[in-house]
């Protein structure tokens, strides 16, 4: 069944994304990895929507695309501001959130 291949692709993308979020030090690359994760979710939604023959999954995927666009807009704006303040976008140097 083709669905399993879609799901496998989604899983691979998700793992790459998770790896990127955890291991990367560059904020822009982390944002890109988050996009990868969101897209792997989209693939999953579409795969299941195709299997069930319903339009709901497509609709949700469209919503996710729109939300992802907004998210990356906000994220990049934050990265820009961080860069202006600290002249660096290395996430390692940002530890003001320490409890």
């Amino acid at each position, binding site marked *: 069944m083709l669905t399993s291949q879609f799901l496998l692709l989604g899983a691979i993308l998700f793992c790459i994304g*998770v790896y990127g979020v955890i291991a990367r030090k560059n904020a822009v690359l982390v944002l890109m990895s988050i996009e990868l994760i969101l897209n792997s979710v989209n693939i999953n939604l579409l795969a299941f929507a195709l299997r069930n023959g319903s339009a709901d999954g497509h609709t949700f995927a469209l919503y996710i695309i729109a939300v992802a666009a907004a998210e990356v807009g906000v994220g990049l704006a934050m990265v820009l501001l961080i860069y202006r303040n600290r002249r660096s976008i290395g996430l390692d140097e940002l530890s003001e959130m320490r*409890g």
Partner: protein
Amino acid sequence: MFAASETLAPLSGGWFLDNAWLAPVVPTIGFALIVLFGKRLPKKGSELGVLSLLASLVVASGAAWQWIQRVNSAAEEQFVAPVVRTWSWWQAGGVEFTIGQHVDGLGVVVLFVVAFISTLVQVYSLEYLRGDRRYTHFFASLTLFSAGMLAMVIAEDMIPFLLGWEIMGLCSFILIGHWWEDGANSRAALKAFFTVRTGDIGLLVGIAILFFAANDWTTENLGLSGFSIRGISAWALSGDPNSTVILMAAIALFIASIGKSGQFPLHTWLPDAMAGPTPVSSLLHSSTMVVAGVFLVARLYPVFFAGLDILGPSSNVIMAIAAITIVIAAALAFVQTDIKRVLAYSTVSQLGYMMLGLGAGAWLPAVFHIFTHAFFKACLFLCAGSVGHSASHHSFDMKRDMGGLRKHMPITFAAWVVSTLALCGVFPFSGFFSKDEIIDNVGGNGYTFFMIVGLGGAFLTAAYMTRATYLMFFGEPRGAAAGEHGHDTHGHAHDAHANHPDHSGPHESGVLITAPIAVLAVLAIFAGLFNATPFGESWEYLKKWVEPRAAVVVEAHAGGPGESLIIAVPNAEEGHSKSPCGKETPQDGICYAPQLNHAKFKWSKAFLSLAIVFAGIAVSWLLSAAFYGRRDPRLVGLTQRNGLARAGYRLLANKYYLDDFYERGIVSSVSGPVARGAYWFNQNVLDGILHGVARGAKAIAHVVYRDIDQRLVDGTVNASADATKTAGATVQPIQSGRVGHYGALLFATAAVAALVFVILNT
């Protein structure tokens, strides 16, 4: 005549017809390549733009040629089926979304015109924008712009149609604001974008209405979705639609056309769009963008035909809007000093003619006018650009910086005069054939009032174009044209041409500029011969090739979607060539196009309109010579002395106060009261509730504080705080402040949770 069951000889096809979808795809690829690699190429990406549009032109010409073969291979009165290919790209909830091509007569004509003019404009831009700081991006946007129009023209259903339509809207925004460093340019770009978007809502609404109204019928009878243009056309003429629904759909779609094609009252963006580079204006105003609105009406003509009762006894909204547009835009052209604005208003007025034709059932003359107008209007804009480029230091002010240029720029002058005569509608230039045919057919279908409006518009057109010609090319040279330098306060294009090699007085432009102008000028003379009604039936090529035949079609599905066997059905009465399509519900078949009438050409009517045009030219010439040439004291300062003239001038100079009305009237009247109302609501209602609640809460709080809080709660809290403190000290190291650590924790937790789920569910 043929029996209903008899199969006709198959229509001829061909590679270009089958692959006409390449026409928009190649420039799209060109756009991507320019964006990715343009800056590294020797010509900064411009070669990719020109090449991709040349390829597109080859495809379009091949398709046009093979379409002519296809029409010739069909029998008389046989419906010539469009060449349709579709690919499904999305399937959800039982609805299939397709992308594909729909090539018919209208498609190939507009495809050819767009590809042809885009190619010439790109060649022209090579020279005109040389040294511009965003040269590569300019060519990228210009290429995508053409691709958007081509995609819209070839679209098989309404979703790709909408896609092409929006790509054009976006690219026009980018291109009008090309020199965005100047605040006025970016404002013009925004104005164009928002005004067109106001209309675009109509397109979305119209598509939605049509889909929900037509989908059942089209799925059942044709196996097509409710987005398909063929399906919608057939449905509109099938007698199935509810008259209110189809009226709403037609009006919604017409609102989109008003926005895109600059019809009254949304025409205000078009003249401001002149802030863009001249090649953009030329492309925007001749074959792309503004023609899109007219094309929409022509493409979905059955919807308008049935919805607005075209050819019915009373006039309809399209004709009313078009007539207003023709007259007010032509009147505005008289008070402009910027040559490009004169041409912009002229475009608005000519689009009014096309709409008038469509509204009055003169479909073919309107499409023919798209065809001829594209050539001469592109030529006029390119001539204006040539003058600005080589003679007036990028100023387009006719009164200050032009005059007497005919000696310096012979090619530009000749091309300008030819195109002006074509625009005015002088025999035998191309505009005569198309414009006269529109006016003729509007009268022929019984709309006498609108025919008179059309003739009046012809008078005004002749007059304002004569005024512009006089100011540009005759009289004494003024300002920059006389060799003066140094007024840098005007002219949008200044910064872009800072390194222009010579500024030594007016001279003829280089060959890359004059060659496209010359080609277009030749077409401005001869394009009219493609449908020269005055010379008899045998000259009416466009009528034969382009007009969809209103035959009743029996469609049998053979071999899946896109391939259907088409059989012509005889008309009910022998010897009567009119099909019932459009007038009554077709029996035993489907109509794709309504039966339209064609007015008989009479030289007497043509002489009347020619006389009006010549009168316009003569009156305007005499007035211009007296006013601008000799400074006749009776005319100079008339607007100061005569109250009526002053009032008229101020009304025109302020563009009928429409811009003021939109900004102060609509924008501030909506935003002001909304803000005031929200403030009042906040102050009185919300605050009142809050105050009341607060007072009540204060009284209760007093009691609660003393008894519950101090004794009961505090005891508990103190105890738990001690516990938390101990726990916090234990887990504090996890709170490293590193985003990565948090992420790792999050995913680890999620993984554990997933594992638990899996175990629980197995």
